[in-house]
């Protein structure tokens, strides 16, 4: 399974949000790091075909996702950055609705929803309206819907934004436990979210990819290049972040 981005470019007027990005994703968890405005969400929106691309291609197993259309969206799980939800729906109804939109048969949907509510620790509040949920609970519902239908490509845009440390760790561990037979793209600007779980880390700055490698390799590379680390004598992903993305 391969998801290729070839010369992917997105411009808003004169502003280039994504500039000729070439990457190939295979099975595994990809942490996408970048400051605000680096182009992470633009890339996510292009991958979900929610905005038109200016140039380039996105190929899934060799076929452009625009050609695949619904077939690509069938294998896609997406959690947007903005918390979008129907405040008057309960978590259970919202998940059933999303399951129907994802064309998941009713019987399978029930099993999956029960399991995902359990995993995201929402079983006890499944009949509560989403409008009454805390920010963290809403994030968990959105994560649950993204994982409905056992998607092969999972795109998570800032999944831990606004969560307390305990919830962040819980969700991080859950993502880490997901089967590796899928492509998981996890965009964030919180380094600790992806440090321990990512197979590879993609560094983005001003719409360009400035680094892509395994976390240990990136740390090793940075350690050779710079002398001082954030914590003296111990190089971490934060040093990588500062090296690639700092001013």
């Amino acid at each position: 399974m391969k998801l290729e981005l070839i010369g992917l470019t997105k411009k808003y007027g004169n502003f280039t949000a994504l500039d000729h990005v070439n990457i190939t994703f295979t099975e595994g968890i990809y942490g996408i790091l970048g400051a605000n405005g680096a182009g992470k969400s633009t890339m996510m929106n292009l991958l979900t075909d929610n905005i038109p691309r200016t140039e380039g291609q996105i190929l899934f197993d060799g076929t452009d996702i625009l050609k695949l259309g619904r077939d690509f969206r069938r294998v896609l799980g997406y959690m947007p950055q903005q918390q979008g939800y129907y405040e008057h729906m309960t978590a259970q109804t919202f998940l059933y609705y999303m399951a129907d939109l994802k064309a998941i048969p009713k019987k399978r949907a029930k099993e999956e929803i029960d399991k995902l509510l359990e995993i995201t620790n929402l079983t006890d509040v499944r009949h509560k309206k989403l409008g009454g949920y805390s920010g963290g609970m809403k994030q968990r519902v959105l994560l649950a819907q993204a994982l409905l239908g056992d998607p092969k490509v999972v795109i998570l845009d800032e999944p831990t934004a606004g969560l307390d440390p305990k919830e962040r760790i819980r969700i991080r561990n859950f993502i880490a436990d997901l089967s590796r037979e899928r492509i998981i793209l996890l965009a964030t600007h919180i380094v600790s979210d992806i440090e321990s779980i990512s197979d590879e880390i993609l560094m983005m700055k001003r719409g360009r990819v400035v680094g892509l490698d395994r976390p240990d390799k990136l740390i090793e590379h940075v350690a050779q290049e710079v002398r001082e680390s954030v914590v003296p004598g111990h190089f971490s992903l934060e040093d990588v972040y500062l090296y690639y993305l700092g001013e």
Partner: protein
Amino acid sequence: MRELGRILSRRRLALGLMAILLLNGLLFAREQREKDYGLDLELPSAGGIVSFDGSFTVTREPVDAWAARQRYSEWLDLVRGMPLADAVAFLNDEKTMISERLTGDNENDKLDFVAVNNILSKTDYLTGYGDWLENIQKNKENLLTFSLFNDPNSFSGRNILKTADEFEKLRGVELSIGADGAVEAFMTFPLTDYFLALMLLLIGLSFLEERKAGLWSVVHAAPRGRLRLAARRAAILLGASVAGVILLYGTDLVLGFYIYGGAEDLGRAVQSVETLGKLTMLTTVGGFLARYFLLRIASAFLVGLLLWLMLTAINNVKYTIIVAAGVLAVEYSLYTFLPVQSAFNILKYFNLFTYISLSDIYTNYLNIDVFSYPLGIRSISQLALVPLCLLLTGVCLFVHCRKKPAAGRDLLGRVAYKLNGVTDRGLRHLRLFGMELHKTLWIQKGAVIAALLVYVAFGLSYTVSIPVASATEQMAKQYTAEFAGPITDGAFARMDAEQKELDAAETAYEDARAAFDAGLIEYPELDRYNREAASAQIKSEGLKKVRARAEELRDKGAAEGFAPWLIDETPFESVYGEQAEYAQREAALVAVLALTLLLAGSMAYERQSGVTYLLKSTARGRGALVLRKLLLAAVMTTVVWAVVYGLEVYTLLTKFTVPAFCATAKNISMLSEFPFNCSVAGWLAMLYACRWLALFCGGVIVLFISNFARRLEVAYIASCGVMLLPSLLYAYVGIRVFRPLAILLPVEAMPLLTAANGALFAVLPWVAALISLAALAALRLFAPRRRPPAPGKSSPEGRAAEL
């Protein structure tokens, strides 16, 4: 002042308040028009014509209500200031003279008759008022002779004495004639009471904003967030009561004075106005109005405080609204359904709705039993107002200060959770379309709109009376009904037979005349023959008209290849005819408004909820979802169409004979130029199919507009603007430039389906344009299918973005 500024800066509230003001004025004016400005427009019949069953009379063309209202004012000016007895005598003389002149169709005479007749009706009340007061005293004497009532320590005995005492004070009060319409309309327009309550409810809801925004704890913790804020809110509520009463009731009164006049008659005794005849207060009309406005302000403040208390007493905003709605429902039920004689009638009169519908306690006289003592409902309500306002202000301030944002156990929340569990079990079986229906009807409150639609549709008038100008015409209609059916030789033979009978009556008169001349019969017998012959002559003229029409249809049928059929067209005309245009337009307006309100939120709700990108990333979130939305538009269209036009068809079916549906449509005069032959049923099917199609196209356009709105209120305003404004400006204001944009016309569909050949083709482009517009809108609703750009080349969207 900042609290007031915060409230006034809420766009939704400001729009709501303005809409209430506008609606109140419009509905008040509309009600006056619908009630013919309080006038009885009936004219005396032309009289004397005997029908087959001896029952019908010839009605005259009705007079214009507004012209009659103006003429009424002119006549009123003539008699204003005259002693009542002189005025009555003068008016009676005038009425006799006008009645004699009324044999013709002179519009002026008709207007004079209506005006004088209505003033005389008023004088009946004024002249009879003294006797009515006298009767109350006589009743007292009579009732006290019965053992059942004569116990002075019982409620009945005390009530009889109290009633007589109170009306005794009115003895000698001088009633005079004047323009009462404004005050009558002002006192009997209950919608304003409910608009005021709604206004206060909106203000009360604005006090809950910090709770909705999650700022309650912050506000409660602020040094001025408790007593001072509560006191300011109480002051704002008082200010809103004053402003609301002045604006709403002031509008009614000013409009009333504009329509009816009477601002110069405010110095008369209040009992001069018939509606206020049971008021046991010695004051003038002006004095009463001033007092009423003050009491109205106090009662509005009280209602506002009660609503505020209900809204603040519960922590959760949603449950607050549910509980408040429950309390209001109970109070309304008690107020409306509790019998006056009930032992618990105190709950009926000492009720929130007594203060909402304050005018009721001034237009009725009633004492209730309080520990065997009769107490007037007006006195109780008035006396209790100020203490209740003070008490409730205190309670509201206390509750506001003491209520903690972080409350303990949420019992209602638990109940709601259980209920949600039950509904969730049902909802999980729904498919995509079912969920869209659920979102529209339940989440976006479409069910309320549907219920209102049913209520309004039942109130619509689908028929108009078709005036009959002459006795001959009336006879022609009766013969048409009698000979209705296929026009065959047999039908002509029956007409000939009837004609012979009528001719015989005329011959009999000739014979009788000869016999009278010969002295063989007396005059009364001749007169009987004469009347029979006169009647037969009118019938004969009517029959000739019917025969001519039958012959015309026979020839036309032969020429154009359809079977001629004599149809009683009156029911058809009264539903679809030119004179029913206003009724047709109103029905179309209701249908368009209901459909717009049902669908306007459909797409905007997704955007407001921020789920658009999420939905579009799913397998069925594009084409399939949009298809369901279009299907929803079709279902909603069908519901609205079935409710509004189902009632219309039902009305027709109750009057139109079923066999006539099989006749060719061209047999009906108004459809004589229809371009091709089809049955009446076929024509009706086309009419209603056109209406459905036009409504559906409108529904698709509403979805399209909704798709661009980021917020629900924007979607509702924009959709109503596009769908209704051009129609209103064209149809009700008369600005012709808006005609091509007025969707009411294709929804009415009458101009299309009654048009002559040329006109049909003139209308077709508009219909084609509407369908094309809807089709384009529907296509645009589906996400544009993008083609992948070739490597290294910009996509069209990309190039556009770069530009």
